[in-house]
């Protein structure tokens, strides 16, 4: 089910945008197949219409042709054959879709907050951008997105990806750019007056150039460090311990919590992921950690979406091994205690991993991706739950 396991014929379809992501050739191949079918049937029908119209044109004003009532064989043929063809399209389309939304394990995380009418990006290393997103070529980039107002939709035609950004929740999107360059980024969901102005560019750079670009923003604190600052300012630390050795506070200790399963009041457990942390900040009692009092106040209207994402980055960095597993893994106590991290990973440790450029760039989209925990289906099965 993974992108790498299906070899994609290299098709280039006329009138299509540049192919600049690993996903693009898949969509173009599907497009070529669909075009072929469409052209075949449209030509067939048009040809038949023209031939019949000429051959059987009315020659006498009063002629009445012999009636033909129908044929079961024909009816079944043109019911079943199209149905079978349609099913092949379904399978192909669905598997492509699955790939597009199956967010990979390890990826460079970028947080995206949309608002009327701009895109705000925040890198883990702290750089913030508006309407421009710099990414290294050949690295997997995972976007965790939300919006401060209405629904928007992040669309990069050259990557063939699109995902609505919905208020009140996180949606995710990932891509791996295969070609350096600057690509258009659009808002595809109508969002008000300046909808058509809500766009920009994704700038795909060579890893070294990207490193330089990152360094150019020197002085920028990492997202986690910004989150840590917020964490102190808002007094979170008075209840939430961030040091594994410390005394359990009135709220759960956050060290190493991200990616685990947390037992909650009532029944069951909940995976500690971005959405759960967001929910717990805005609506602390919705899923109360087991054994704690419902005393935390809501921070709704006190922190904005960007700040929540910074807090998430911070909490996530607690107890993470050096730049290790950044995806939320729950299996086998993954992401627990390795590495002596103190709060707030330094920019360098955060930066080093996701950038490891493993895929040869320019035009060969399929091969090696960053190392993953399992391979293929095993990795999928492990991912959550």
């Amino acid at each position, binding site marked *: 089910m993974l992108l790498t396991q299906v070899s994609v014929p290299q098709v280039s379809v006329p009138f299509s945008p540049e192919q600049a992501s690993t996903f693009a050739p898949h969509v173009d191949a599907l497009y070529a197949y669909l075009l072929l079918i469409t052209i075949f049937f449209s030509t067939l029908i048009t040809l038949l219409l023209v031939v019949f119209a000429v051959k059987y044109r009315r020659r006498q004003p009063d002629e009445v042709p012999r009636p033909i009532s129908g044929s079961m064989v024909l009816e079944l043929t043109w019911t079943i054959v199209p149905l079978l063809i349609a099913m092949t399209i379904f399978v192909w389309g669905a598997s492509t879709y699955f790939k597009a*939304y*199956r*967010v990979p394990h390890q990826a460079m995380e970028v947080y995206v907050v949309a608002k009327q009418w701009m895109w705000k990006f925040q890198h883990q290393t702290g750089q913030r951008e508006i309407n421009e997103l710099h990414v290294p070529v050949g690295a997997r980039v995972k976007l965790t997105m939300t919006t401060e107002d209405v629904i928007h939709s992040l669309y990069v035609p050259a990557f063939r990806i699109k995902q609505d950004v919905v208020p*009140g*929740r*996180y*949606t*995710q999107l990932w891509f791996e750019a295969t070609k350096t360059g600057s690509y258009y980024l659009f808002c595809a969901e109508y969002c008000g007056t300046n909808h058509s102005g809500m766009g920009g560019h994704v700038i795909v750079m060579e890893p070294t150039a990207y490193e330089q670009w990152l360094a150019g923003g020197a002085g920028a604190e990492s997202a986690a460090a910004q989150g840590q600052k917020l964490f102190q300012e808002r007094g979170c630390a008075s209840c939430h311990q961030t040091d594994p050795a410390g005394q359990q506070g009135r709220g759960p200790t956050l060290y190493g919590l991200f990616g685990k399963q947390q037992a909650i009041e009532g029944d069951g457990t909940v*995976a500690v*992921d*971005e*959405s*759960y942390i*967001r*929910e717990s900040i*805005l*609506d602390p009692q*919705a899923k109360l950690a087991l054994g704690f009092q419902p005393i935390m106040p809501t921070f709704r209207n006190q922190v904005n979406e960007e700040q929540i994402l910074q807090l998430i980055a911070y909490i996530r960095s607690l107890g993470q091994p050096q730049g290790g597993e950044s995806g*939320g893994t729950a299996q086998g106590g993954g992401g627990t205690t390795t590495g002596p991290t103190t709060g707030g990973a330094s920019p360098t440790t955060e930066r080093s991993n996701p950038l490891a450029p493993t895929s040869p760039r320019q035009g060969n989209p399929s091969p090696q991706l960053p190392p993953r925990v399992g391979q293929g289906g095993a990795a999928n099965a492990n991912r*959550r739950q």
Partner: protein
Amino acid sequence: MSVHIVPRKIYFSVFAALLVLTGTTVFAATIPFGRMNDVVAMTIAVTKMMLVLLFFMHVRYSSRLIWVIVASMFFWLLILLLLTLTDYSSRSWFGPTVIT
């Protein structure tokens, strides 16, 4: 086709059944079955509805066409409810996109 006149006795029996079922549903609500409370309440409600439909609304004595209409309105209502549920019930299966 002459009109089928439903005897009054049937109306009164249905009425009594409806009252009894109303009492039952109120009583059942006091017993904590957990999620089963909803199932019980809805089963009773559907039973009551069937009684009203079949006897008060004469569906039992009506043409097949009326049966088809009644069946199809429930079918369409179920389409609306169940197909929307396919989205909400499977959202958490895939990615971490849980709603706050």
